[in-house]
């Protein structure tokens, strides 16, 4: 029996030290270097290696910390007696923290390796010291968010996280789009934090302390009105960070603007901090006795986020924006698990709630791996072609075989196809919802079938979207010179993607081990263990409730492989040796096709654009310049725009109202000192006259 507390403490210190070293050391390095002048690129290279090396070591230590907490069940607790800023605070890493810390560290490690190669792009023209400082600070603040055991410390690291990401989004600051995205992000983040402050102050007024220990299980002592206000504040505050619809507007702007290794972290783990906060507050603080409508509200948010997220993703031709919208979709899927767990808790079916919560948290882990993988793949494409527009790519599978393969693995995983990990968590969510059919409550009778149907729709649309994303980007022939001259990414980048692809397979084929790790956590949060409910043996998941349901992803994998082999063998036996004919991809029998004759992303998504025209409100603009004769048209411009309902009907009116109100107030702002003094004077005299 190892000494868990000792391991945890050491791992924690190593993690903090690694991030601090990786962030600060380059600063000293550049000072020392100044007295020993050599090439700037050489300095940048060593800064890069030290910075990302520190992050890598720290992330591995984070993995160790997370694993030891999860395996032993012993929480890491460090009291910080009296700090200058916050008074006494505490660091507390329990199972819930450990799951999210594990997700952070598990993604941060390969992303750090990836960055070794990816950041070489920035070497000649960028401030590498700033990059590694922000990168390490970002990771440290995220780790801080999940292990903070004190509200003030939590808010501090939460804001650090927002500020570091603000600068990271702004890293390529010559681009006005990046500056706009960063500003939008920081505005939304601050609005979110304001709600979190309200929430913590409300909790404090009833607990008398800011430590999370005192908040635990406070729900039963709160008046129901206050409880609901706290719940709503948590949804808005954490929801903005998580990117739920309609608070998502920053997300599709910010993710593409940031460098790809950062986008992978933002999408893979940062938005999960919102989920962490929600689970902590809903189950840790306010639970376990919750009103029914909370679960229903979360399910509504979850369903609209996932369906609208994937629908908007389908219309995107910017690879990273497309992935950003998929993050919204997946947050929706995760929240389906969380919402179902809340609903089942409210209705008293705790075992089912535990399954739903496990499913949601499992999807957090899965989304981190495959979305991290996909963003790294997109970064690899960007690195090779300097283009994010998939209409300009094509044929990359021949130039970037490894990147293409790993991207395909990620695409299959995010589409929820077996045997990869996306399938398992979505299956678990489906199962927990389907078992809910047995309940007689009216809300459940309405909410559950709708959720199930829309989750199925989401899965199908996501698959369609990734057929588009993968097909147009990697298959066919190159649509631009950049795509033609693309080159494979360096080993550091492909190996990082390979590692994540391996994780996608492992978490898909061996779900039992992940579920058994998450099970005690669910037991701790919901009050009942799912063990005995979800039986795990040899990779088979069984849920014996009412009619039992079981699945074995490992066996499914074998079956799939076997099924692929059957037609090949049958064909061989029937027709003899396979005949081979080499032709151009998608040439449709023609001898030669030009790149512009290929299927386009816009064309591919047209049927869906037609079906959901109410949501997209697409506008076509065709401009034909007729110079000589109507039969020879030198220029035809075609523009297709889809509009965001939320921007037009929610944010624009809000924006107009704020500006309008400011204009009204501005009238009394003459800029004349005497006028201001006169306001004070008149107010004073009137008060003296009437308020004696």
């Amino acid at each position: 029996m190892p000494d868990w507390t000792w391991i945890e403490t050491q791992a924690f210190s190593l993690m903090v030290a690694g991030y601090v070293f990786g962030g600060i050391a380059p600063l000293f390095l550049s000072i020392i270097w100044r007295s020993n002048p050599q090439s700037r690129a050489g300095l940048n290279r060593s800064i890069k290696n030290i910075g990302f090396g520190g992050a890598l070591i720290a992330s591995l230590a984070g993995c160790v910390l997370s694993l030891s907490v999860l395996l032993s069940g012993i929480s890491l607790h460090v009291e910080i007696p009296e700090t200058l800023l916050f008074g006494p605070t505490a660091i507390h890493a329990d199972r819930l923290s450990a799951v999210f810390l594990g997700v952070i560290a598990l993604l941060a490690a390969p992303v750090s390796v990836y960055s070794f190669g990816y950041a070489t792009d920035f070497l000649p023209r960028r401030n590498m010291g700033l990059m590694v400082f922000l990168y390490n600070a970002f990771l440290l603040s995220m780790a801080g968010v999940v292990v903070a055991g004190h509200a003030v410390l939590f808010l501090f690291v939460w804001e650090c996280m927002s500020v570091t990401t603000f600068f990271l989004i702004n890293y390529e600051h010559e681009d006005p789009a990046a500056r706009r995205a960063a500003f939008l992000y920081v505005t939304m983040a601050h609005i979110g934090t304001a709600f979190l402050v309200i929430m913590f102050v409300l909790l404090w007024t009833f607990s008398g302390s800011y430590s999370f220990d005192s908040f635990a299980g406070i729900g039963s002592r709160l008046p129901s009105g206050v409880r609901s206000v706290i719940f709503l504040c948590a949804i808005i505050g954490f929801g903005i960070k998580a990117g739920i619809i309609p608070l998502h507007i920053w997300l599709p702007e910010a993710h593409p603007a940031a460098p790809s290794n950062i986008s992978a972290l933002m999408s893979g783990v940062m938005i999960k901090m919102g989920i962490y906060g929600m689970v902590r507050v809903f189950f840790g603080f306010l639970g376990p006795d919750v009103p029914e409508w909370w679960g229903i509200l979360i399910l509504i948010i979850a369903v609209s986020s996932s369906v609208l997220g994937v629908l908007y993703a389908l219309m995107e031709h910017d690879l990273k924006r497309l992935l950003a919208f998929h993050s919204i979709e997946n947050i929706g899927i995760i929240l389906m698990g969380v919402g179902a767990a809340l609903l089942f808790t409210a209705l008293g079916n705790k075992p089912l709630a535990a399954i739903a919560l496990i499913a949601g948290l499992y999807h957090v882990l899965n989304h981190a791996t495959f979305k991290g993988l996909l963003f790294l793949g997109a970064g690899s494409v960007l690195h090779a072609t300097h283009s994010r527009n998939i209409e300009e790519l094509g044929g990359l599978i021949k130039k970037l075989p490894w990147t293409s393969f790993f991207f395909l693995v990620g695409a299959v995983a995010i589409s929820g196809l077996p045997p990869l990990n996306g399938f398992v968590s979505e299956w678990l969510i489906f199962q927990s919802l389907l078992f809910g059919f047995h309940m007689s409550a009216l809300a459940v009778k309405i909410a559950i079938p709708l959720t199930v149907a829309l989750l199925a729709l989401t899965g199908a649309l996501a698959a369609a979207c990734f057929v588009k994303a993968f097909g147009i980007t990697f298959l066919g022939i190159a649509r631009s010179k950049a795509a033609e001259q693309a080159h494979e990414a360096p080993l550091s980048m492909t190996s990082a993607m390979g590692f994540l692809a391996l994780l996608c397979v492992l978490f898909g084929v061996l779900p039992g081990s992940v579920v058994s790790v998450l099970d005690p956590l669910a037991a701790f949060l919901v009050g009942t263990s799912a063990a005995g409910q979800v039986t795990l043996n040899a990779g088979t998941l069984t849920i014996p409730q009412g009619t039992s349901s079981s699945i074995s992803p490992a066996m499914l994998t074998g079956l799939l492989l076997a099924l692929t082999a059957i037609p090949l063998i049958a064909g061989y036996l029937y027709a003899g040796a396979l005949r081979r004919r080499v032709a151009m991809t998608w040439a449709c029998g023609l001898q030669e096709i030009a790149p512009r004759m290929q299927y386009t992303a816009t064309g591919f998504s047209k049927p869906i654009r037609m079906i959901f025209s109410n949501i997209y409100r697409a506008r076509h603009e065709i401009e034909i310049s007729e110079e000589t004769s109507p039969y020879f048209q030198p220029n035809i411009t075609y523009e297709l725009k889809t509009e965001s309902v939320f921007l037009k009907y929610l944010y624009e009116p809000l924006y107009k109202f704020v500006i309008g109100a400011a204009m009204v107030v501005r009238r009394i702002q003459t800029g004349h000192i005497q006028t201001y003094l006169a306001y004070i004077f008149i107010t004073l005299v009137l008060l003296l006259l009437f308020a004696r």
Partner: protein
Amino acid sequence: MDTANIQTIGLLIDIFAAAILVTAFLIVSSRSLAFYIRLFALQSLFLGGVALLVAVGYGETHILIAAFLTIAIKAIAIPVVLTRVIERIHVQKEVDFSVNVTVSLLLCGGMVILADSVAQSILGARQADATAVSRVLSVSIAMMLIGLFIMTTRKKALTQIVGLLTMENGVFLSGLSITYGMPLIVEVGIFFDILIAVLILGVFVFRINKTFESISIDSLRSLRH
């Protein structure tokens, strides 16, 4: 101390308070910046006198220090500083009005009446032992209002400073009248504050003059855009 003496001191305080009010009115009606500053010095001198009388008549020794500080800082140091500022920026002449002298004086008269009625309602229950000191309260409130009025209606940056100082004198006087002065540490703090404020404002006036070639704060309006 016997009653006759108390009455004499009370009478003297009344006369000094009236003199302070008169200087305030003179400031309102004055047209020259240099005269403004001299009037302020005189007002501060009278204020110091009231403080001295309170200290002697009611045996509040710590007010003695406050009285000397009033005379040293407000009646001597600040006027000297301000006079120097005027000399350096060569604006001896007119004060700009946005409300003319006649109307200003009438309004200030109204303010004194308002201040008196407010003071009566504040004292209210204590009317029975209306000592000379508490009668001064209405003067102090009037001073605050007049100071604010000067700041509102006069346009030169220096007149703003004098307005502010007049208000401050009013605050000091009300402190004296209600509680026989605030604790010494507070008084010393305020004096220090005021001195520094005047120094900084003096620098500001100088800079404003340099930037806009005028100390009329109308020009600051252009900063709005």
